[in-house]
């Protein structure tokens, strides 16, 4: 409840029919926003007054991005095209974990494996320098293989295999999608190497470890952002997930000879590490 009467905010949530994850996130955001009422109202809302559009997922963003409008737009998990700057006022929450979080997890779970592999697509290129210095800060070495198209992923993974102790996965449509995870997971598994992923889906697919935000955690952060905006603070330009969980795929980890504690234990330790 606000201490002074700020104007109520009407929020509209837009998404397309996509993965189960997007569906669940929309449901959670919906219930989290309802708890903010009456300061925050969900569509349909009376005309006039402050408005905010939230898009969830790639399809939702595409629906709204091209529509000219004065209504501020906050995008959750937009496609990479959104990063190319928009004409609309607003901000975004991208689900990419901060790279340092993956490095920290690798250090925590497998401290002796210092050589970490990474596949780099054209969109990731610009950030490589920063990633490499983050790794060096932690006494780790980042070994990168460039990939231009998804058909090159298998060969790139094979080139990495002899030189790395684990493979880190950062979200990217070209290198990590439903098609490329097959050769990626099968080849790394054959070489006895774990993959550290960025989503629950990746964990289920076969990543030994993953750090990800659940729909509940995303909704919690979105509710905080919306509440702050309603109370007069600006929308953050670009944020990464604040709340996250660590998951361990025990059958895969044990099969690779890794003895990992439960995800909850790793999570507690991870939160204490500097990002």
């Amino acid at each position: 409840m606000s201490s002074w009467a700020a104007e109520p905010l009407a929020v509209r949530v837009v998404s397309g029919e996509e993965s189960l994850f997007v569906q669940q996130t929309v449901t959670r955001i919906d219930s989290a926003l309802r708890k903010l009422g009456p300061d925050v109202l969900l569509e349909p809302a009376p005309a006039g007054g402050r408005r905010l559009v939230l898009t969830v997922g790639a399809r939702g963003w595409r629906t709204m991005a091209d529509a000219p409008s004065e209504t501020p737009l906050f995008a959750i998990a937009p496609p990479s095209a959104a990063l190319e700057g928009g004409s609309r006022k607003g901000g975004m929450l991208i689900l990419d974990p901060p790279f340092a979080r993956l490095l920290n997890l690798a250090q925590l779970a497998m401290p002796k494996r210092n050589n970490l592999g990474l596949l780099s697509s054209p969109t990731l290129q610009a950030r490589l320098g920063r990633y490499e210095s983050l790794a060096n800060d932690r006494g780790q070495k980042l070994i990168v293989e460039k990939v231009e198209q998804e058909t090159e992923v298998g060969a790139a993974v094979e080139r990495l295999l002899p030189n790395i102790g684990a493979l880190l996965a950062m979200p990217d449509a070209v290198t990590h999608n439903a098609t490329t995870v097959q050769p990626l997971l099968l080849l790394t598994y054959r070489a006895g190497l774990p993959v550290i992923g960025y989503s629950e889906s990746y964990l289920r697919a076969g990543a030994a470890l993953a750090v990800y935000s659940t729909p509940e955690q995303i909704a919690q952060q979105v509710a905080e952002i919306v509440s702050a905006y309603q109370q007069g603070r600006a929308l953050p330009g670009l944020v990464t997930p604040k709340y996250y969980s660590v998951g361990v795929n025990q059958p895969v980890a044990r099969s690779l000879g890794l003895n990992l504690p439960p995800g909850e234990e790793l999570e507690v330790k991870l939160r204490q590490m500097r990002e």
Partner: protein
Amino acid sequence: MKKMNKKTICWAALLALGVPSAFAAETLSGHDGDQNADFPVVLSASRLKQTATEAPSAVTVIDRTMIEASGARQIADLLRYVPGAVVGYNDGNWPVATLRGMSAVYASGVQVLIDGVSMYSPLWGGMLWSEIPITLDDIERIEVIRGPNAAVFGPNSFTGVINIITREPGAEKGSHLSANIGDSGVADVSYRHAGTFDNGLRYRATLAQRASNGFDTRPDSQRYVFGNLRAEYQIEPTQAVQLSARWGNDQKDLGDYDVRGGSMQPHTIFGRRFDLQLRWTQARSSDDELWVQYYHQQASTQDHVLIDLRDRFPFLPFSFPYNVEIDFATERDGVELQQTTRWNSTLRSVWGLEARRDAVYSPRLMGTEQTQSSTLTRGFGNFEWHFATPWTLHLAAMLERNSLASTDWSSRTALTYEPVTGHVLRVSSSTALRTPTLLEKKANYSFSAQLPAPFGTIVAPIYSATGKVDSESVRSDEIGYAFELPEHKFGGDMRWFVDHYRDLIGQSGLDYVNRDTARAEGGDLTLRWEPRSGTLLRLAAATTRIVSSDDLGHYSVSAPRQTLSLLWDQKIAPQTNFSANFQRVGKMAWLDAGENGRQLPAIDYLTLKLSQTLPMNSATGKLSLVVQNALGRHKEYYAGTSPLTVADRVAFIQYSMSY
């Protein structure tokens, strides 16, 4: 919002039922850039490797590194890595393998699977190792379970289980060409191609030939032409369908140069086979999987030799041409289901059902124009209960109804204890049955020739089974220890076992009967160490002692007292690799070696391989020199009816190219 909720629930329900959802295809392409698209479960339960520290039984895993370092041309030779296993050569192109002795040429009692389907012969019960339509390159790994494991792996898992797992189409891409040329007429060639169609169908196809002239002391040349295809289609993230098809065409010489007038007079036999496997899998996670499969196998062998009966019966005043024909055709069809479920953090189960029909058509061996068949149905359940932190209890049981034997149970109980991470103690006890083969139950094998007056009909009966024979049984107890020290890249396992065999089947007169008992006791030790990057050392040693009634079979001398297997794989330059593979097998005799239990002397077998990788523009080449049996001539393990089988050194060049 309410509409959205209903749709979410609907989607979740559909996913739970495993029904493909309407927009699955779109989410799969992932080209929207949605990083949260549902990924397929790639490392599902059936794709995970068995490890010595996790498994409730003694397991040996032969991986790609070991396959490459072996210098082998025949799949059976890879079994030299298994402690206690013996690979013998009945002739230059007829490998025979036993996991722990007590075997004849058609070593029955070993469950051999390719991608989870039983491949041993419905007629002989044993595995025809030189007629497997896959190349060594097609193999991802081989998992060997040493000891009875019928409760989980089904029929014929009497002395062990060999599961050959082929490469996944999803892990391969492009073409691979390989050829071996060398001594003894070695002329192998293979071409493999893996790819993906636009609709997402992945495939791996191989076409190959394996040919060699075998040993110079025997007429045993072989030319085996074969091909296989493995295709997989991901219907949606949790459902996939897989098809495997294999065919092979064999032409092989058989016999003994010294024999005239008998079935071992040198001649050529022809064989063909076709295998099919169709599997539907629903995998929700690495611990939650259901698969249903159908399989079909058919094989036929044509074995004709034209002899002159006068060579056999010198009293005949004239030549009498006679066609010795031993043809047979076999067929196997089955459906099988298996479900893996993780109930909670401490309990996991695997259960399954199988129904199978085996059939043999062989007027010669069965004495009838009718097809002889047998049916089998089995159900099994396996529970893994992690009841207290360092303890896990494994309980498995199987019920099998087989038309060739009485219905019976097999079970396996194991308790593992991991006091310190990476060190596991194991105690287990299991029972298993080996049901009689169609040959042992229904054989009616004889030859007859109608001679002109004053000679009458000559009849030579060989087998005439009364069908009274029932299953052999074994009870096995073992204690084992496995350890893994990942930081030092050092690991191993050891065990001590005592197996009690009863009702062992042997030939008494013309019939097959249950007679002998045997007690096998022994131990084995496997150690694997990578002292530094580029060096791999492996040792597998075993000792076995068998005490038996030896009534119908000389079991007590059928296993070598000691076996030793050593591997040294060494990178000697950035693109150059050397490997040495040594195996020493103590003296032993195969059960149907016609020399009545006379053991062959110990054999030392050394294979050396030197490889050089040749990077080219858009391809990778590899040139290798392999010398098999480098230590030279030795009398081979299988003596049969005493033809002179001498194995010599074989050197060949291997060239392969991936592009």
